[in-house]
């Protein structure tokens, strides 16, 4: 058995090693794949705060992923067309600067998470799963019908947005940006777990009645977790849009919410590195199985079933020999 601390160190190093190797072997597509895994991991790291620590099974996290994506899409769309963005009486200029886009993505998704969380947290269990799904569907259908920004067709951004001092069009440089963001999110996650808030949230998942009797409000703790979680997933959405230079309503789809949960469960619910391991495996599986057969979804399904039935605690759980937190 391996200590979780070693995994926490080894996984990011491995994720870093793959594109570095690809750079030397001149396989730029592998770098793109690693970037995709990194961004999906970031989204799942966000979800894992709500899911793994807070116990909130959100089947609507695609909302935040999509909002982040559209924040990027809309700002860059106005910048590339040199048209102003008008919200009511206010007029903004579009932008192609990643830091500004990130800030907007984080703020917008945090606000959405606050609203959705405040309404959804009135329910629990299956109802919570379903009401978050309902919000996801609302955003999905809204985006499809919103023809000003492409509707179902989505929005294409022809050139990747810029980051001061970098050429983000070079795959390895964009990977580096995403990797650093992921590491920061992981550090935030680790810090959160050990903090007073993390302790209280962790207890709110396991014994909400206890948390109440020591004078704390478990709902508010969970809401805060939901907001932080949504904000990180939103940031991932903005990066994902930049990776593809494209946003579309499919970023809001319930299948995407489901995939984010899948990533976490494959890796290990509530584990710091669970989402990262899960995202890497998922992208690798997708790539490898997809090349093997047209019907690769069948085998993906079989692998997933195997993990749920026989590897509780996910891959990290298998490696450390410890079951994960109970959600």
């Amino acid at each position: 058995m391996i200590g979780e601390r070693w995994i926490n160190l080894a996984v990011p190093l491995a994720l870093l090693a793959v594109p570095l190797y690809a750079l030397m072997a001149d396989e730029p597509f592998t770098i793109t794949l690693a970037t995709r895994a990194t961004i999906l991991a970031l989204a799942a790291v966000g979800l894992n705060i709500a899911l793994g620590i807070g116990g909130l099974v959100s089947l609507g996290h695609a909302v935040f992923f999509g909002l982040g994506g559209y924040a990027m899409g809309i700002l860059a769309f106005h910048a590339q067309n040199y048209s102003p963005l008008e919200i009511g009486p206010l007029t903004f200029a579009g932008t192609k600067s990643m830091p500004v886009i990130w800030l907007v993505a984080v703020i917008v998704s945090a606000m959405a998470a606050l609203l959705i969380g405040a309404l959804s947290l009135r329910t629990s269990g299956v109802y919570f799963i379903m009401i978050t799904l309902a919000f996801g569907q609302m955003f999905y259908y809204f985006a499809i019908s919103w023809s000003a920004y492409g509707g179902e067709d989505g929005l294409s951004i022809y050139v990747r947005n810029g980051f001061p001092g970098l050429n983000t069009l070079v795959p390895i440089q964009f990977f580096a940006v995403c990797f650093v963001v992921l590491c920061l999110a992981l550090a935030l996650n680790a810090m959160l777990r050990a903090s007073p808030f993390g302790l209280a949230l962790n207890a709110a998942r396991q014994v909400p009645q206890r948390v109440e009797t020591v004078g704390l409000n478990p709902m508010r703790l969970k809401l805060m977790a939901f907001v932080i979680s949504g904000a990180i997933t939103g940031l991932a959405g903005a990066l994902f849009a930049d990776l593809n230079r494209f946003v579309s309503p499919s970023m809001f789809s319930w299948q995407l919410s489901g995939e984010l949960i899948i990533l976490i469960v494959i890796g290990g619910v509530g584990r710091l590195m669970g989402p990262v391991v899960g995202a890497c495996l998922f992208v690798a599986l997708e790539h490898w199985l997809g090349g093997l057969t047209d019907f690769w979804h069948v085998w993906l399904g079989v692998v997933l079933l195997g993990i749920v039935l026989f590897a509780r605690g996910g891959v990290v759980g298998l490696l450390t020999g410890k079951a994960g937190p109970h959600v």
Partner: protein
Amino acid sequence: MSLVLIAEQVLNGLQFGVMLFLMAAGLTLIFGVMGLINLAHGSLYMVGAFAAAAVAGATGSFLLALVAALAAAALAGAIVEMVVIRRLYAAPHLDQVLATFALILIFSEGTRWVFGSFPLYLDIPDWLSGPVTLPGGIAYPLYRLALIGVGLAVAAGLWWLTARTRLGIQIRAGENDREMVAALGVDISRLYTLVFALGAGLAGLAGALVGAIQSVQVGMGEPVLILAFVVIVIGGIGSIKGAFIGALLVGLTDTLGGIFLPELFKLFMEPGAATQTGSALASMAIYILMSLVLVWRPSGLFGARA
């Protein structure tokens, strides 16, 4: 807008709702008795439709096709229950969501493997095709009337089953207390398989009935699945009565919203934009309805209080 048209649209909403009920009843029954969230319920709907299309193609008989749909879906349900689902009853919701999501992948692509990528043919039998004229001069398709009839009959049948039969007593006892049922000497795992197969059979029947007027294709179960979940959540998970009321509510909201919302927006917007905005809002209407219901009653209309 004439009264006749409104009456026809209400009938359409009812018919849609009644079909949703066939899906939702199984889903809510399975949740009520076993506490299981079954995302793969839509796959069983698809299995029913494909079985019906295959049998109708081979024999030309619509009734045989319906029987085949029921049987195939129930059988698929029973097998899935015994091989996979059985291991999930004690598992947290998260694992259930995931495992049944995996089953969707397997069912969908497996079906495509067997039947190919093109939609299958399944049509209304001659003796049910064409419109009939109802009182008030409404010309309404006979088949859709038949659907309403079948749906109501199934609803009545389910009520009778749960309220009046030995199996029903076991089901209701199972909802309340598993150990109690086991202590009464009922073979609990057989009961679960039976309930799962019953729910699956209903989904398969719905798939076949609807498949005759829609397209029998891979992935047809997923949109219906989401709607069925909306229905049971609105009605209160585990409640057959709730599923029935919820199904009608969703059916009517979806159908009437699609017609009246664009008209409503035309009162103060130019027609093109009104149609688009109205349609957009109509497609979100049932989800808005669902979140309103849940914010008002967090356990649905007829759900047990948490």
